[in-house]
Each structure stands twice: as C-alpha cells, then as structure tokens.
C-alpha cells in the first residue's frame, strides 16, 4: 500500500504545517464525534473555535483566553528547554504550587504594609520557590542518578499536601472565620496582580509570559547555552565531546523550568485565583507538557499552542453549557488534538509514497 521513506533532512515546511493539519483533522474527527452524539457538528466546532474569539461574549472570553494561556506559556517555555535537552521535568505542577505558596507567603507575612517593593519581592519569591522544588529532582539525579521523571512527578503530591496545609493552616486567613484559604490578594493592593487594562485579561503574568517567550527564543537561537541544550538532546556523546557538562545542564534546565513554573503560580495566586486555596492548582503544570509538544518545543510555537489550548478550554466550557455537550466529549476532543498532532508528526521526518504499491502489483 503506502511506504514510508525517511527524508534525508527533516522538512521545515511540514514541521510548521503539521500543527495546522492536526487542528483541521481534529475538527473533522471531532465533528463526526459530535454528530454521533446527535449535535450539529458545525455548531459545536463553531462554539469551540469561533465564538470565544468573535462571538457574542468574545469581549469577555478573549480575556479568559489570555488568563488561561499565560500560565500555560510560562510553564511550557521552561519545560521545553529541558525537553530539548532530554531532561524530563514532569513535576511543573508541584513547582507551580510551591512558587505560589512561597510568593504568597512573602506578601502575607508583611500584610498590611504598603510598599511598591512588595510585589517584585513576591515575584522573586515565587521564582525561588519553584526553583528550589525543581532542584530536588535535579540534585538527586546528578548526585545519585535517580530518575527525574519519577522524582519530580511524586513531588507534585508532596506539594499538594503542603498546599492543603497552607490553605487550612499556616497561610489561612486569620479573619476568615475558620474557612480554609488565605487572605485575598485582590483587596491587598501592594501584593495584588490586577488586570492592567480592565476587561482585557491582561495581567503581569501575561507580560511575563511574553517576555519568557522572547527570552527563550533568544537563548535557543543565539546563546551558547541554548545550543548546548539542543546538542545534549540530539546527540549526548557529541555534547560531551563539545565539553558540555551533563550535570550542569540538568541543574540549569530543571532550575529554569522550575523558576518559570513558580512564577506562573505566583501570578495566578495573586491575580486570577486571588488567594491560596485547597484546590488552587487546576492542572496547568500537566497541560503545559502537551502545550510544549504541541508548540514543537519552540517558544513562539508554544505561545500559539497555549492560546489554542486555552481556546479549547474556554470554547469547550461554552459548548458544554450552551449546547449540553458532555464535558467528557470535550476532553476526548482535546485528546484527539494531541493524537493527530503526534500522528502527523511523522510527515516532517518521512514522506509517504504510493509508488511501492504499483511495483508490487507488477
């Protein structure tokens, strides 16, 4: 039938084309799924992909897109650096939680002092918290050769336990009448992360995400460290020959991704979430893994992927409430997206030939 033929060099055109092809295929297959559920497939796809951007409530929903895309971008950009080097930080969710707790703790410790230095200090604290949490698997890997996938993943559950202790114990709002949860940052101006322009969803986290994208792009394209990251991922022995220290790279990549995840947590807790609560984390750290790959581990690709992912979240919620679509159908839809992306990924390294078939017949 078909034969696959390895390309001598990976196709640049397909590397960029496959995400779009994957989205198109997802719309078709998803449409069939929705039709099988008895819904109008066009209406559903339109609700998910069109309405959040240009529909009736687009003004509000577009802001929601930024709010959801910002932490995904921040985390995924950091993860992508490690993934490129073959360093698998799967525990960004934990680093996100710890970053939020340490950053928030700084602000809450000095409450109700008003100073313009408080928020910058909290940002540093958030990054530091995430960095420390990521250093645990990094150190264990370099000193004891443990597997960073397992260690970082399991530290997520430790972080979640610490979070519930924080929300119910050491960071609980003393004036909250015993309810779990910290003081609200929306009513504490020096430590808050409000919308910069009302109604746009634009907060400091969005700004930080954009800076992170540009910073990572420059790092990967122009800086020796970015080159070493790519080299270590593609050809570890060549990296050793080039004088790259594998241990140093593990520390740097885990550290950078941890700090960025911590920052995402800090911006979330001080802005959209507003307080430390038991269920503060909603899985951004895990979704960011998908986003990183969807964006081909390229910083700008990740920005687009994060917006697309945010779109399926926001649009999916709309479809669930407005059209009565089961929320599990939306999740299948998101799964399809990743599935098709991985499937058509093949095209950038291989080409499909029909010629083999003709020869067999003869």
């Amino acid at each position, binding site marked *: 039938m078909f034969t696959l033929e390895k390309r*001598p*060099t990976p196709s640049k055109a397909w590397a960029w084309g496959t995400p779009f092809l994957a989205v198109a295929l997802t719309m078709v297959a998803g449409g069939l799924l929705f039709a099988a559920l008895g819904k109008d497939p066009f209406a559903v796809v339109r609700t998910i992909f069109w309405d959040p951007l240009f529909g009736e409530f687009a003004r509000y929903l577009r802001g929601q897109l930024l709010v959801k895309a910002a932490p995904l971008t921040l985390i995924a950009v950091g993860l992508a650096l490690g993934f490129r080097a073959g360093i698998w930080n799967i525990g960004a969710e934990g680093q996100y939680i710890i970053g939020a707790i340490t950053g928030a703790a700084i602000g809450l410790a000095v409450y109700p002092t008003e100073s313009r230095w408080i928020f910058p200090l909290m940002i540093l604290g958030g990054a530091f918290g995430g960095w420390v949490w990521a250093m645990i698997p990094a150190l264990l890997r370099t000193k004891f050769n443990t597997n960073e996938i397992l260690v970082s993943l399991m530290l997520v559950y430790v972080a979640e336990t610490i979070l519930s202790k924080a929300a119910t114990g050491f960071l609980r709002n003393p004036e909250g009448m015993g309810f779990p949860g910290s003081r609200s940052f929306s009513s504490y101006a020096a430590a808050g992360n409000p919308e910069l322009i009302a109604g746009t969803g634009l907060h400091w986290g969005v700004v930080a995400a954009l800076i992170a994208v540009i910073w990572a792009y420059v790092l990967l394209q122009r800086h020796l460290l970015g*080159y070493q990251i790519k080299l270590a991922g593609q050809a570890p022995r060549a990296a*050793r*020959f*080039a004088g790259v220290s594998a241990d140093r790279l593990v520390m740097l990549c885990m550290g950078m991704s941890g700090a960025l995840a911590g920052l995402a947590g800090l911006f979330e807790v001080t802005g959209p979430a507003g307080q430390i609560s038991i269920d503060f984390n909603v899985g951004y750290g895990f979704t960011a893994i998908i986003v990183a790959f969807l964006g081909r581990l390229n910083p700008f690709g990740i920005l687009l992927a994060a917006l697309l992912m945010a779109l399926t979240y926001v649009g999916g919620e709309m479809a669930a409430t407005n059209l009565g679509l089961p929320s599990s159908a939306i999740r299948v839809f998101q799964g399809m997206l990743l599935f098709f992306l991985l499937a058509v990924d093949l095209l950038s390294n291989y080409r499909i030939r029909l010629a083999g078939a003709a020869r067999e017949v003869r």
Partner: protein
Amino acid sequence: MARDVLLGLEGISKTYPGVKANDGVSFSIGAGEVHALLGENGAGKSTLVKMIYGLVKPDEGRMTLRGQPYAPPEPRAARAAGVAMVFQHFSLFDALNVAENVALGMDNPPPMRALEGRIREVSEGYGLPLDPARLVGDLSAGERQRVEIIRCLLQDPKLLIMDEPTSVLTPQEVDILFGTLRQLAAEGTSILYISHKLEEIKALCDEATILRRGKVVGTCTPREKSAREMAEMMVGATLNVPKRAGKEPGPVALKVQELSVASPSAFGTSLKGVNFEVRQGEVLGIGGVAGNGQDELLLALSGELRTPRDTVQIHGRGIGDSGPNDRRRDGICAAPEERLGHAAAPDMSLTENALLSGAVRRGLTKRGFIDWARTRDFAEDVVRTFDVRTPGIGTAARALSGGNLQKFVLGREIMQEPEVIVVNQPTWGVDAAAAAFIRQALLNRAEAGAAVVVISQDIDEIMEIADRFAALNEGRLSEPVPTQGLTIDQIGLMLGGAHGMHQAEVSHVHA
C-alpha cells in the same frame, strides 16, 4: 569467456530519492570464482549486494542464479537459494555463546548438541579455530567474524558475500581468512568480495568489477593490474600519494605518562599504564585491532575522560584533569572515530556542527552569545578547503556521505590549527581520494609544527604517514618504534600475535 556462470546481473538499476545508487549494472560471477566489487564510498556497492541478498528490490534489470531467474523478496529466500552474506558490522549478542549466536541466525537450527559438533567440524575443516561454548562478549573481532562466517558456511552456500571483511583483522588474521576463502573457492563456492583495500584484492581475487557513481566503469583481472591502476579506475582521477617532509622533530609537545583509566562502557577496554611522547612535527601512529582501548585513549586525550593532572601533559604542563574546552584552549584538538553522534550531531547543520568543537579556538562566541556570521564563515572555510561535497552549510550532517562528513570533521579540527591533534580512524570508510587528502592534511599539520597522533586500524595508513609506531593491545601500549624498516610481520606481532590464533588470551571487543 568460457566459464560456468553462477550469478548474472543484467541492467540492474536502483534509484533512491535524489540519487541513482545503481545504474544499469551488469556483471557475472563464475562458479568457484573470487570476484571483487571495487568502488569508492557511495559508488553503489552496498546497494548492489543488498539487492543480491534480498534486502532491497531493484527498480529495473534482472538477476539469474545458475541460469534461473533470481529475485529474492527477502534474505530468507536468498539464503534458501544458496546466497549467504557476512556483514561489515556483526550482529551478535555479547551475552550468548558462539553456538547460541549461530543458532539465532539460522532458519532451521538443529539441536544444540548437534550444532556444536557441526561448528567444530566446520571450524576445523576451514582452519578457523572456534570454541562453540565461549561467550561472544569475550571474543576478539577476528573471532567474532569467524562466528559470522561459520554461520554462513553451515548453510552450505553457493555464493558467499563478504563486505569489507578485513577492516577489523590483524595481518595474521587476514592470512587465515584468505586461506579459508581460497579453500572455499577451490571447493566451488563463489565469493563476492567487497573492499577498497587494493593489495588484498590483488592477493585474493580472480576477477574485479569496478563501480563508480552507480555504474560499472570497468572490469579487470586484479593480478594483472597494479594497485594504483585500480585505484585510478575507481576514482576516475590520478591519485596523489601523501608526501612527507622529513624534518627533524622539535621538542616534546604531548606527553602521556602512566595513563590508566577505566572504560566508560561495559564491554570497553580500560587503559593500563600508557606512556608515550610526541614531539612537534612528529606523527605517532597507534595501531591495534578494534576494541583494544582506542576509543578510551581518544576520550582521555580529548578530555571527555579525566585523569590525574600529570598523566597528560602539553609542553610539560599537566592537563589530565581538565575538560575538552580547556584542552582546546591549551592546543589539543581531537577527532573521534564515530562521525555521526560523537564527532558531529546528525540532525544539526554543518554550521552548527562547526560550532561544536570550533567555538573556543575560533572565537565563535562573545560573552556566551554565538556569532553566527563567524560560525558560518568557519563552516564555509572548512567545506571549501577540505572539498566537502554538500549542497550547502545548512545541510544536516546526517545527509552527507561518510567520506564527506569525515572530511568536514577532520577539516574542522585541523583548521583550528592545534598544536596537538589526535585522530581516531581518520579515513575509516573513506574513499581513496579523500583518504589521501586527509592524510596529506595531517602531514601538513605536522610540518607546521603540530604533534600528530593517528590512532588507526589500517596498517598501510600508519606506515604511510607515521614516523613512529606503537601498538595498543588490551589497553596497554607497546614502546613506540620508528616505522622505517618495520615489516608487516613485526607489526602483526606487536598488534597482538598472541591473541586470536590459538584462542589463548581473552580480549574484550565492544559490540
């Protein structure tokens, strides 16, 4: 020619995207004939034998075996028709013994006890001593090859294909192999022998077919031609033999003193108390059968393996404990044997690969940021000076042929003008013209005052360019001796006449 034709090829063509690997190839092999297939790298030899062995299907043309149409859809069918092949790279399991490995490669293996008996019988009958109960992980490269050959012989082949069989053998082992092949030919088995070592072909083969760029450019009777004539047919140009300057060497540039280091890989060979000195303008050739510590020696000199400070000294200063980039700064450049994955990153462009080792000495970075313009200039320079055939410097390293990539890798190191340059297998799998070019470049570097260390399994290469010779055997280095006046027999004994022949010593060869 009146002879019994065993295998005939007529107008065989095979096209891969962008390259015609074989273009109307026709030739025939007589029964009991040792037929050489000669050609540069990329001339289409491998594709051709893969078609004969059923691994690849030809686009056009037809083959006949004993007069019958022959088109094996898979190697199993080729074996059933009596065609067997010994590959250049062995497919053996280190953790299994000889008999088990043989059984794994057979379509219908007999019971183990019977098989062991057959292995003994065949190995003694053909002068290839081999104990079926030994672990393959403990065998030398020559012995491993015997396992592959015996596996083929047990199937009683009519045609035995051998792909560059002598690249891993000592001269004595080569003699044994040739004895076996001659015996097989005398019994009526045809042999298709692929090599670029012309002296071997002259010694062994009855007929030769010469390929260039996928086409047959000539046939000859090797005994009647000189090696040089055959090489020129193969390359299609006149060859230049490297010239040596013959200058007096200067002071000691590189000194290695009691260098012992454990191998980083499980089946590797640790270095044991290696000592040598190389003076400015001198070429030291280090010979040895593969897997006797060559890789480890290169790693210890390039800085990928670190050792106590004074074990490696440049101009009298200890640098054994510094990493690759510090050593480059101090003037040592190295080119490892494995081109793809070690000396170069396969998926990166030539520009990016130029940065890989050239960053320090060529000043390709500024405060941590890469100067891509300078890097591209450097890559262009290497491509131009070393005649690397590539569409451009943006091409991925893996898209280059082995010889071209080797020229790029060697060029990258030489053009950094190192004071000490260490190369491992500088011309392995490289065609004759490129090999001559690389050797000349190394000699030029020596003439410019560098100390050159050439680690090579190609004795002819060492004799051609080295001033002194030392043999690496099981991680120990012999006392270096001047190459002038050294005979092939003496070299063979230095390389380890002790192992292989009568299965005395155990040597480790990594797979």
